[in-house]
């Protein structure tokens, strides 16, 4: 599903974000990518979405050879993924329903299919009743659920969430995590980049820990260790 082979990323200003990273994520997995800010966690996510290009190495996502793909292919890679951001990124002048439908409109999906799929996605995240509201009328947790519904609208095989609970209080964070977990149970591969220890520890999923551009640990049913936090203190 996702494979990184000898991936390095150096930014034009000389900052080394990733050094010779090798990582393989199989279909159906639920993986946390943890590490303090500046560890290279965000860079890794950006490489998967082709927001940044690799300096060296190969990246495969969902059957796409991301490291060598042309700009014009990028939209098709992104359509095959679901993506959830820390800041939700909903279109403010579209309703909840329209926001979710929009992800399908851009893929030129049939209107019939949109009418079928959007209510299903909204039902999954429990927002059927708020379909006609605007993002500004919703709480943060609800907005993130809309974003999740949008990410799921096209039935992606892979869902990537970058700090999905970063702007949410602990209780709402849990709701989102439960949803992600449920999505995973339905067969979608889920990758969550986060630095929230309590959640990672509780969920007992695979944890890939990144520090200073290197994968320092990769554990099944892992935990966010104290040393990761210590790293954060240095940075």
């Amino acid at each position, binding site marked *: 599903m996702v494979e990184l082979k000898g991936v390095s990323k150096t930014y034009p200003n000389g900052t080394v974000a990733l050094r010779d990273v090798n990582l393989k994520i199989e279909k159906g997995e639920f993986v946390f990518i943890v590490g303090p800010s500046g560890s290279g966690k965000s860079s890794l996510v950006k490489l998967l*979405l082709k927001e940044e290009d690799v300096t060296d190495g190969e990246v495969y996502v969902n059957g796409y050879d991301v490291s060598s793909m042309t700009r*014009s292919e990028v*939209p*098709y*890679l*992104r*359509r*095959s*993924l679901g*993506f959830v*951001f820390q800041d939700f*990124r*909903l*279109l403010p002048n579209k309703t909840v329903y329209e926001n979710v439908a*929009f*992800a399908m*409109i*851009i*893929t*030129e999906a049939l*209107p019939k299919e949109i009418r079928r799929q959007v209510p299903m996605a909204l039902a999954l995240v429990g927002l059927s009743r708020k379909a006609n509201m605007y993002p500004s009328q919703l709480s943060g947790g609800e907005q993130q659920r809309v974003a999740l519904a*949008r990410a799921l609208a096209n039935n992606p095989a892979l869902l990537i969430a970058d700090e999905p609970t970063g702007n949410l209080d602990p209780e709402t964070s849990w709701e989102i995590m439960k949803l992600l977990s449920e999505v995973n149970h339905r067969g979608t591969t889920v990758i969550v980049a986060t630095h929230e220890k309590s959640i990672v520890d509780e969920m007992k999923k695979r944890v890939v820990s990144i520090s200073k551009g290197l994968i320092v640990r990769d554990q099944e049913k892992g935990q966010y260790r104290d040393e990761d936090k210590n790293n954060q203190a240095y940075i």
Partner: protein
Amino acid sequence: MKIRTIRHIFKEGFVNSYRNKLMSLASIAIVVASLIVFGIFLLLVINMETNIEMWKEQPQLEAFCYVELDNTQVQMVEDVIKKDDRILQYERVDKEQAFAKMRDKLGKNSAILEGYGAEIFPVSFIIRLKDVSYSDEIVKALEGVSGVEKVSYSQDTIEVITRVSHWFKLGSGVMIMIFLVVSVFIISNTIKLTVFARRKEINIMKYIGATDWFIRWPFVVEGVIISIVGAILALVISAYGYSLLYDKFAQDLFLAESQLLSLVEIKDVWTQLASSYVIIATMVGATGSFISLRRHLKV
């Protein structure tokens, strides 16, 4: 591209230009101004050309004899003209007739002719040709006839006017270009502002996998809408303005009846005006948007 996508793109373009009312209106105003300037030049050129055509269809020459020529000498000139089979018909204007004509022309001011007689005027022949194309040779031939002082050549006037209209066209071409460049610039600036206003939205669209053109087309539509609206307004204004002018012209009996000048009626030119407005507007709008998108929308 599927039809529903095209529909979506048009809807977005309309919604955006509406949301962007103020800038859209400013751009529309500029487009209207440029197109009206263009329209004025176009109408002038069309009128000039029809008048030139009209004059060309009146192949008239006037050959003037020397004033001091006596009747026999004039008769010799007339014989030459009579024999020329390229000449359809001619009319002899005697000294007295010329004198009377001048007196009529001067009207109230005819007093200045006091003390002069018909003898100061030359005898002339007004000549109608069978075909305009002969005019050059006939003029040469008549000028070679002894006793003929000069041949006034209606072709001369036509040539001057043709040349003036050539420079006029060139000049208006330059003016029109300047206005079009300004319009393109203004539209591209409007689109730049919409792009900036919506950059967050554009960014989101990119993340969920919208293709470059899916993002760009609504902006192109927006630019074209602005300029088409401008074209329609410009058409209404210039057609109305021109018919007012036409009516004023028709009321000016001296000009209208002199048959020296005629104005083209608006119903004969409005399709030409409308189609050039729409074509120019579409090109200006699309170019403006494209320039702006190339510079400011790195999708």
